[in-house]
C-alpha cells in the first residue's frame, strides 16, 4: 500500500482531457484524498497536446511530483511526450484505437484498452474518458461506485439514462483492464483516506470567494489567462447579492471604472495578468494620487509581451512594486497557498480602504489555476474594516469658504478622513493633479511637499498579518530557502530531502512583497550561511529585492527556472546542493 501517487491523462486539446481529470480528481477528493493538479495547456481551443497531471495523497500536498505512476493516453503523442516521466514499473493505459507503443528500453507496463470502441458501443465515443477512468480505478483498486456521486451531479440534468451509461462505461473500462492484467497489479493501491470533506478549487476560486465574502459588489474586468476565472465566478455570484460585473472594452477601462466605483463607496476590484497590468499602470498612479482604494489581482504568467500566456512564471514582481510613473504608496501582497489566497483577498480589501491606496494581490499561474484540495475556510476570520470611512456618518458644515470637505487633510498617520459622493457636507474635489486639502489643484511648493509626505507616510505603520511564513527552526542554517507565491509547496517538499542529506535548512516565504518586511527578514538571513532564492524568472527579481532591502549580497544566490514549467522538488534539491 502507498500514500501517494501521480496520475496523468493526455491527448489533444478539446478532447475532454480536462473533464477526465476533473471527474477522477473530484471523486478522489470526496473520498478524503488530498489532490494537487497541474494542467499543461496551450493558448488554443482545439488541437495540440494537452495533459492534466494529478497527484493523489493521504496527506496535504502543494506541489507536483517528480515522477509519474500512471499515464492515460488518448494518442501516441501523449506517450511520446510523457513516458519518460514514468517511474520504473509505471503503467501506461492507451486507447487501443491508435495501437499504443512504448520505448523498449523503458521498464513500463503498457495496456491497450479500447476506450473509444467501448464508448461507441455504449452510444457515443464522447464517453471514452469514462472508460479511461474505469481502467484507472482498476489499477488503483478503487470501487467503481466511488464515481457515482460525481457522475450523477454532472450528468443528472441530461437524464438518468445518461448517468447509467456513463457508469456503465466506467465499469466496462475497469472490467477490461482487469481482464488484460489478470487482476490487481502490485504497487498502486492507495491507503485509505480520512474521508473528510474538503473543497476542490483553484487559487482563482479562492480569491473570488474571498472577494464575495469581503464585500465586493462590483467588478470591472477584461478577460485574460490566467485571471478570467475570478471574473467568471463574480459574474455568477454577484447578482445573488445585488451586485454585477461589467466586461469592459479594455483593462484601462476596467481599472478606471473600478476606481470610479471605489470612489463612490463600493468595494470594487479588477483582475488581470501581465499585459493587462501594463495597461493599468497610469490608473494605479491615479488611485495612489487620489487616495481612492483599489484592489487589483495580477495572476502572473510567462512574459514579456504576450510571452507564454498559459505557462508558469513569476516575473511581474518589479513591475508591480514600481509600476506607474512618479511615487505612490502601494501594497503588493503575495499569498502562497490557496487558503491564504482566500484570506488575503479579504484582507487586500481592508488594507486598500484603511490605507486608501492601491493594493496588488499577486499570484502566479500555478497558484491561480492549480486545482487542489482545500480545508474548509474559517468564517470567523472574515471581517470588514473600512478605515476612516463611515458612510452613515453625519458631517458638520465645514469652515472652507466654498463649503468643501478636507478630504486630503494632513494628518499624523497620513490617512485622511474619507467621505463618498452623496454625503451631505462632504463635497470635495478629487484630481490626479497635485492638490490641497480640499482637493483643489495646487502647485504651491510647500503644499506639494506636505501632500507628498502625507501620502508616502501612510504605509510606514502598515499592519500586516504574517508578512513572512517561516519554516525550519535552525538557529544556524546551512541554507535559507526563500520564495513567494506557488513555490511554497516545492520548497516544503525539498526541505526534508535536503535535511536527510545532512543540510540544516530554513525556509522564508515572502507574503508581503512591498513595503518589504526588511526588519523581519534580516535575522533569517543572518542565521544562514547561504540564502537561495527560488523563483520562476530569469533575472532573480526577488533576490534583487532582498539585496536592496537587506544587503549581504555575497550570501544571496538565485535558483531560477523560466522555461514555463513549475519547479519539481528534485530540481530544487539538486540545484541547492550545487549552490552551497
Amino acid at each position, binding site marked *: 500500500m502507498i500514500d501517494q501517487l501521480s496520475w496523468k491523462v493526455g491527448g489533444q486539446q478539446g478532447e475532454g482531457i480536462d473533464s477526465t481529470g476533473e471527474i477522477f480528481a473530484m471523486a478522489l*477528493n*470526496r473520498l478524503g484524498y488530498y489532490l494537487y493538479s497541474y494542467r499543461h495547456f496551450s493558448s488554443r481551443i482545439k488541437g495540440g497536446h494537452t495533459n492534466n497531471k494529478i497527484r493523489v495523497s493521504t496527506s496535504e500536498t502543494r506541489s507536483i511530483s517528480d515522477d509519474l505512476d500512471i499515464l492515460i493516453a488518448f494518442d501516441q503523442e501523449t506517450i511520446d511526450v510523457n513516458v519518460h516521466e514514468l517511474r520504473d514499473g509505471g503503467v501506461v493505459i492507451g486507447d487501443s484505437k491508435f495501437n499504443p507503443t512504448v520505448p523498449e528500453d523503458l521498464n513500463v507496463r503498457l495496456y491497450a484498452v479500447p476506450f473509444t470502441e467501448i464508448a461507441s458501443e455504449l452510444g457515443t465515443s464522447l464517453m471514452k474518458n469514462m472508460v479511461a477512468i474505469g481502467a484507472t480505478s482498476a489499477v488503483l483498486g478503487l470501487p467503481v461506485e466511488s464515481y457515482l456521486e460525481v457522475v450523477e451531479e454532472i450528468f443528472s440534468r441530461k437524464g438518468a439514462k445518461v448517468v447509467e451509461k456513463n457508469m456503465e462505461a466506467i465499469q466496462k473500462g475497469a472490467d477490461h483492464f482487469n481482464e488484460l492484467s489478470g487482476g490487481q497489479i502490485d504497487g498502486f493501491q492507495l491507503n485509505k483516506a480520512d474521508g473528510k*470533506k474538503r*473543497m*476542490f478549487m483553484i487559487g482563482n476560486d479562492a480569491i473570488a*470567494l474571498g472577494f*464575495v*465574502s*469581503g*464585500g465586493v*459588489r462590483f467588478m*470591472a474586468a477584461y478577460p485574460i489567462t490566467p485571471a478570467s476565472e475570478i471574473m467568471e465566478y463574480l459574474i455568477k455570484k*454577484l*447578482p*445573488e*447579492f*445585488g*451586485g*454585477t460585473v*461589467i466586461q*469592459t*472594452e479594455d483593462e*484601462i*477601462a476596467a481599472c*478606471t*471604472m*473600478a*476606481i*470610479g*466605483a471605489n*470612489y*463612490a*463607496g*463600493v*468595494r470594487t476590484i479588477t483582475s488581470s495578468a501581465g499585459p493587462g497590468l501594463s495597461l493599468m499602470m*497610469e*490608473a494605479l*498612479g*491615479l488611485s495612489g494620487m487620489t487616495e481612492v482604494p483599489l484592489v487589483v489581482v495580477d495572476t502572473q504568467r510567462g512574459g514579456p509581451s504576450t510571452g507564454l500566456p498559459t505557462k508558469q512564471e513569476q516575473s511581474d514582481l518589479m513591475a508591480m512594486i514600481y509600476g506607474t510613473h512618479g511615487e505612490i504608496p502601494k501594497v503588493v501582497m503575495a499569498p502562497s497557498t490557496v487558503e491564504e489566497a482566500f484570506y488575503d483577498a479579504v484582507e487586500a480589501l481592508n488594507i486598500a480602504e484603511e490605507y486608501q491606496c492601491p493594493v496588488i494581490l499577486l499570484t502566479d499561474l500555478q497558484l491561480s489555476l492549480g486545482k487542489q484540495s482545500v480545508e474548509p*475556510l474559517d*468564517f470567523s476570520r*472574515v471581517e*470588514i474594516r473600512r478605515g476612516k470611512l463611515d*458612510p452613515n456618518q453625519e458631517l458638520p458644515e465645514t469652515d472652507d469658504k*466654498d463649503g468643501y470637505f478636507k478630504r486630503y487633510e494632513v494628518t499624523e498617520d497620513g490617512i485622511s478622513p474619507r467621505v*463618498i*459622493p*452623496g454625503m*451631505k457636507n*462632504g*463635497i*470635495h*474635489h*478629487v*484630481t*490626479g*493633479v497635485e492638490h490641497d486639502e480640499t*482637493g*483643489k*489643484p495646487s502647485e504651491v511648493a510647500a503644499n506639494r511637499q506636505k501632500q507628498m509626505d502625507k501620502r508616502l507616510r501612510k504605509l510606514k505603520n502598515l499592519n500586516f498579518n504574517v508578512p513572512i511564513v517561516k519554516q525550519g527552526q535552525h538557529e544556524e542554517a546551512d541554507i535559507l530557502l526563500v520564495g513567494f507565491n506557488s513555490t511554497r509547496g516545492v520548497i516544503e517538499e525539498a526541505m526534508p530531502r535536503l535535511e536527510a542529506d545532512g543540510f540544516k535548512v530554513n525556509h522564508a516565504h515572502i507574503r508581503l512583497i512591498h513595503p518589504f518586511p526588511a526588519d523581519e527578514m534580516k535575522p533569517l538571513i543572518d542565521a544562514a550561511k547561504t540564502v537561495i532564492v527560488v523563483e520562476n524568472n530569469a533575472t532573480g527579481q526577488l533576490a534583487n529585492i532582498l539585496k536592496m532591502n537587506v544587503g549581504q549580497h555575497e550570501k544571496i544566490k538565485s535558483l531560477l527556472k523560466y522555461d514555463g514549467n513549475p519547479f519539481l522538488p528534485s530540481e530544487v534539491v539538486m540545484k541547492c546542493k550545487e549552490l552551497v
Partner: protein
Amino acid sequence: MATFKEFRNSIKPNWCPGCGDFSVQAAIQRAAANVGLEPDNLAVVSGIGCSGRISGYIKSYGFHGIHGRSLPIAQGVKMANRDLTVIASGGDGDGFAIGMGHTVHAIRRNIDITYIVMDNQIYGLTKGQTSPRSDVGFKTKSTPEGSVESAIGIMELALTAGATFVAQSFSTDLKELTSIIEAGINHKGFSLINVFSPCVTYNKVNTYDWFKEHLVPLSSIENYDSSNRMMAMQTLMENKGLVKGIIYQDKVKSSYQDLAHGYSKEALAKMDLNLSEEKFNQLMTEFM
C-alpha cells in the same frame, strides 16, 4: 431646492477670456438646478485638457481623472451609486482621440450618465495641435501643411454605435444648451451632448462667427423627428454634421442598470457588505 448659484464655487477658471467653456459650465450649473438636483447628489467627472478642469469649477462632487478616461470613471461612479446624477465631461481630444474606445463602448453600454464634450477641434492645453475633429486642411503646430486625416463625424458614429441620446449645441446658446443638458440628465440611458466650444486662442478657423454662419438649427427643419434614426443620420450627412439641437432620442430602450441581471435597485454604495455564515457555508459547499 438648490439654485444654480449653489452649484458655484469661488475658483476662477484658468480658461482664456472668451473661451466657450465658460458658458458650458454655466449651462451645467443651470441645468442641475432646473432639474432639481442638490450639489451633494451630483458627481461631475472630467478628463484632461482645458475643459477637463470643469469638475473643479462646479460645486458638486468632482473627479478630475486621467486623460481619456472620464467615461469609465463616471460609469463606475454610477454603477456604485445609481442614486447619484453623473455627468462626464471633457474635450474632443479626451473623448474622441485617446478616449474614443471608451466613448463608443459607453454609448453602446447605455449606462444612465450624461457626457458633455466641449469640442473646439483643436488641442488647446498643449498649445495648438490637430484633433480628431479638425477638418482636412486645418493648419496647426502638428499639421503645418494642413491636416490630411479625415475628421470624425462623431454624431453619425454615435448613431451607428447604438446611442439612445445624441445632441449637439453651441456654447453661446446658453438657453438651448441648458435645456439640452436637462434633457440629457432626464434621459434614461447614456446621453451624448457635443458642444461646439470655440478656442479663441488656437483655432482661428472655427470661430464663433464661423459656427453662427454654418450651424443649422434642427428646429428650422420642417417635420424633423428626433425619434427617427434614419432621418437623424440623413440630416447629419446632408449638413456635414453641422446641426444643433436634439438629433436623436430613443425613449423606449432601457438603461444598462435596468437590464443588468440581478443588479440591485438599491444603490450598491448603501448596501450592507456583510455575508451571513449560512450563506458563506453554502458558497463553500459548492466547491466540495
